[in-house]
């Protein structure tokens, strides 16, 4: 309860602006300044969601989340693994890093036939796009995080007789966590976009499929219903990731316990 209140307080300006924009949009559309088949009235979009919430949530959202979850998990595993590989081997770094960079420059849509060739229309074609889109920030930030370790700490652990594995586990990994988390958060956003784009390359369910299908049927309400749901899910995921990050990195925001001057904590 208290959390929710704080949250509302913090974001009240944003929420206010958002509501204002929605109301204005409603008025603009109702007064026919913008045709409803291009931007539908917010009320219509909500109506559409309410009418179809069952299939939207249980079929399409579910499918997208499945692709997202598998894709993001694999991207995280592969991305971190590659970062670890590059961290341990200069050769791997020099060989692979330019490819990682290049992979971001190739417009995915241009590669869609290749995805179809390799993965067909299975779940895996969407997972592949998801991985391709979220891989880059995860690799880069976990690699940066791993490299960030101060030499002094390593020497300290070695002086205790620590082996390489211990140094990696007790030093490099916790040290890389902050950077890794920010990479995962960005990767998460791109993974969701990736799942959507993956569905455009051929699918039979998912919010991306739904939006494209509705677009093909010239149903703007449906298109925006899917976009709204995707955005909400994205924000929720981002928020949850931020919360987990705060928990895991709680040591970062601990304030001083020693309180010589009687600092009064602000609520």
């Amino acid at each position, binding site marked *: 309860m208290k959390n929710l209140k704080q949250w509302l307080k913090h974001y009240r300006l944003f929420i206010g602006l958002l509501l204002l924009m929605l109301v204005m949009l409603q008025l603009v559309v109702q007064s026919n300044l913008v045709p409803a088949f291009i931007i539908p009235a917010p009320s219509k979009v909500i109506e559409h969601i309410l009418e179809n919430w069952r299939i939207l949530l249980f079929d399409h959202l579910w499918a997208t989340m499945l692709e997202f979850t598998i894709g993001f998990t694999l991207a995280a595993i592969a991305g971190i693994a590659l970062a670890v590989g590059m961290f341990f081997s200069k050769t791997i770094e020099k060989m692979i890093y330019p490819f990682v960079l290049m992979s971001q420059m190739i417009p995915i849509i241009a590669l869609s036939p290749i995805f179809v060739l390799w993965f067909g229309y299975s779940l895996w074609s969407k997972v592949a796009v998801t991985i391709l889109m979220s891989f880059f920030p995860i690799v880069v930030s976990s690699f940066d995080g791993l490299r960030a370790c*101060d030499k*002094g*700490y390593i*020497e*300290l*652990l*070695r*002086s*205790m*007789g*620590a082996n390489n594995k*211990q140094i990696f586990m*007790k*030093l490099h990994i*916790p*040290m890389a*966590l902050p950077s890794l988390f920010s990479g995962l958060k960005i990767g998460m956003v791109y993974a969701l976009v990736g799942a959507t784009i993956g569905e455009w390359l051929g699918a039979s369910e998912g919010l991306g499929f739904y939006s494209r299908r509705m677009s093909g049927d010239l149903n703007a309400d449906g298109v925006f219903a899917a976009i709204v749901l995707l955005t909400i899910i994205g924000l929720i995921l981002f928020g949850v990731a931020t919360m987990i990050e705060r928990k895991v*990195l709680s*040591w*970062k925001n*601990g*304030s*001083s*316990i*020693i309180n010589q001057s009687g600092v009064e904590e602000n609520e």
Partner: protein
Amino acid sequence: MTLIIKNLSYTYPNHKKPTISEVHVTVKKGEFISLIGKSGSGKSTLLKLITGILYQDAGDIKLNDRSITLGDVGYMPQQDLLLPWRTVLENIMLPVEIQKNSHLTREEVRKWLERAGLAGYEQAYPNQLSGGMRQRVSFLRAMITGKDLLLLDEPFGALDSFTKKEMQTWLLSIWRDSKKTIFFITHDLEEACYLSDRILLLKPDHPMEEIVVGLPRPRPSDIVYTSKLVELRHKLEKKMTDEKP
């Protein structure tokens, strides 16, 4: 426990001149030895050689007649280097975790924490501690390795003079009770005189000199204002700044 360093030399890769050359030192069990020298004279380098973090180009370092290896000594680095994501207790337990063979219980560690005035701070994170507290945690971490030889690299360099004084007295009491051997780096001549049995002078391009302090123990903290200690300090300073050998 005896530490015998013979004819030690070390040159950093890419350096032309050796940082450590032909150093001879013998440290006996229970001694308190200080190493003084200007910044960059190679004090930390010598300590890292003893820990085994660096490996010498020539000469050898023997602890109880065996060549020294990593994990043989308790080492307290120049910065406190507490792991910021570990609580005080977890930081102190780090060497126990790493060496796995320690018989220390958490109970004994708690006693040490109390002794260091850190009771109640077990679960605090390093960024919640003052400078002096951090130094004590770092020192306990070196203690807890259970090694007989402790290498302390300017442990009090970052503290203000009042805190430093308290910490020195505290360190002496710990040393007396625990019967450890301490190899102590400092650039503070007064600190070296107050704490040590012997003082080693490290000067680039000079052979290492040794001065025996010869003050009685236990030493009261205002011994630093006695003329004997002041004179010793003055002598040390002259030796250090005197450019000609």
